[in-house]
């Protein structure tokens, strides 16, 4: 069996009326890092919580290593490691105590638990801090401890929900290295959610772009980018001129599509370098001054824009609409 995670048509609506998932499907192969990329509120955390048996879907199915998350939750729990956004470590225990508690709850024999804890603490650079209480750890150290907790019982799949959110660049780079090492070992599948495009691009073997609770595109980062033929030429012309610039450019044979983005127009063209002078000349001839011009290879941001009609960065600050963890009742 080559597919470790099979998700089909998951739907979930929270009591507050938020439709978190709206027919979400994807498959993860053994040994790969699979990314769920999307803005806050897209349904990434809800998906992970359903796969980790913490939340029930309204409909749809999900299987982990062949076990159904709704009907066989206990078997699923033996296969998974879960690293949530909220860390879940006990701040008043030491790193080692946290790890050993987890190992015992995962029913590891005592000897193996101790060995495995030592091994992970050393690998993750926490050996010196192992016997200090977690409250004294930095954000990056805490995150590495979270990863160790998720890996202690050698699960088939580990879920990392926004693993680098809130980390400083240095800690983030260190965590990337750890994940790349894990990928190289190929013994574990990783489902990673992120709202960082560079993270998805750099770490994931394959990824799904999630928007409004649905997968809008799926593939390797290269495939997704290749789907968008051509390059992106950004021409800054000033806000008053964008509408006119757009209509001038739309007719050109070199140009596939044109959209307006703030004070600039963005033209998608098969060959950016050769099209750039043509576009600039055409605009100048129409009386439009080009202030700056730039050519970009397609990025995941363009892929996102292409599939959702919105720019990714605009969504960054959207409030998390996640029900569940962190919510308050009456």
């Amino acid at each position, binding site marked *: 069996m080559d597919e470790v995670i099979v998700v089909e048509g998951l739907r979930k609506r929270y009591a507050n009326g938020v439709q978190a998932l709206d027919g979400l499907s994807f498959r993860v192969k053994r040994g790969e890092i699979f990314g769920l990329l999307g803005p806050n509120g897209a349904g990434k955390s809800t998906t992970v919580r359903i796969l980790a048996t913490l*939340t029930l879907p309204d409909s749809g199915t999900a299987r982990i290593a062949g076990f159904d998350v709704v009907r066989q939750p206990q078997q699923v729990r033996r296969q*998974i490691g879960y690293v949530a956004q909220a860390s*879940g470590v*006990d701040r008043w*225990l030491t790193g080692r*105590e946290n790890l050993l508690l987890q190992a015992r709850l*995962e029913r590891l024999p005592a000897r193996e638990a101790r060995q495995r804890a030592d091994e992970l603490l050393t690998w993750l650079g926490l050996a010196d801090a192992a016997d200090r209480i977690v409250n004294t750890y930095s954000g990056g150290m805490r995150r590495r401890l979270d990863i160790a907790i998720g890996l202690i019982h050698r699960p088939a799949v580990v879920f990392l929900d926004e693993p680098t959110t809130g980390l400083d660049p240095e800690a983030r780079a260190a965590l990337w290295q750890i994940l790349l090492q894990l990928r190289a070992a190929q013994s574990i599948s990783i489902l990673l959610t992120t709202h960082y495009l560079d993270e998805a691009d750099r770490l994931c073997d394959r990824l799904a772009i999630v928007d409004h609770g649905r997968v809008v595109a799926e593939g390797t980062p290269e495939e997704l980018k290749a789907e968008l033929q051509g390059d992106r030429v950004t021409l800054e012309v000033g806000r008053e001129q964008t509408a006119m610039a757009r209509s001038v450019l739309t007719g050109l044979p070199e140009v596939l599509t044109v959209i307006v983005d703030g004070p600039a127009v963005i033209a998608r063209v098969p060959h950016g370098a050769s099209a750039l002078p043509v576009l600039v000349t055409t605009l100048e001839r129409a009386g439009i001054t080009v202030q700056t011009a730039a050519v970009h290879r397609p990025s995941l941001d363009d892929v996102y824009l292409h599939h959702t009609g919105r720019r990714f960065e605009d969504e960054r600050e959207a409030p998390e609409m996640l029900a569940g*963890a962190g919510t308050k009742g009456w």
Partner: protein
Amino acid sequence: MSWFLWDTWQLTWRQILRTLRLPIWIAVSLVQPIIWLGLYGQLFRRIVELPGFQTTSYITFLTPGVMIMTAFFGGGWAGMSMIDDHDQGVLSRLLATPASRGAIIAARVLHTALTVLIQSGLILALGLILGARFHGGALGLISVMLIAALLASGIGALSCGVGLLARREETLIAVMNFLSMPLTFLSTAFIAAPLMPRWIRALARINPVNWAVEAARGAALGTDSGMVLTRLALLAVFTIVCCLLATLAFRRYQRAL
């Protein structure tokens, strides 16, 4: 079942480690009992001259009451750590493991009982220092501590249930404040039953805190073992019902996620 016990012990050990990291809380929780025994007990020393007390020393009368009152508070705050675990994501982490769900509640109840056992032992010692004298013997005094732990278990389970449903510290504090004073004053913790107004005596009869106070005092003084046993039975039923309610609350919590 064996996994339930294993998981309960592992999670209780976690709570014990936490308590050992911050042992100051055990001391802080003893400030109130010290005031009750040391100040209140002295202030109302001559109250036992009224008819109806089974003893001639108010400290002797008061000590079991203060032990039970402290147990009640100790149990009442158990839900705070549940809310903290929810906020910190600890509950989600535990629920994603094969760990027994019942053990997550049971460990907290067991830890509360153990903490209260230690606290009530210290209060008992304080009472003895201040001049309390009991005729129930060592068995009687151990029984008092176990009765305190039993009440704390029930209240602790209830507090966890409220914590899981409310998921807000403010709500739990409000519920506790709303219950603690009335339930303490509607009991014989401070005054003998014959001296109470009739309506309070009637309410005290259905008050679990009063069952614990009467059972504890009876055991300490070595009087009326029949009364002690019936109160104990009532208290056991109360604790079991509380644990069931906490389990239901936990199910509801899991469904709400």
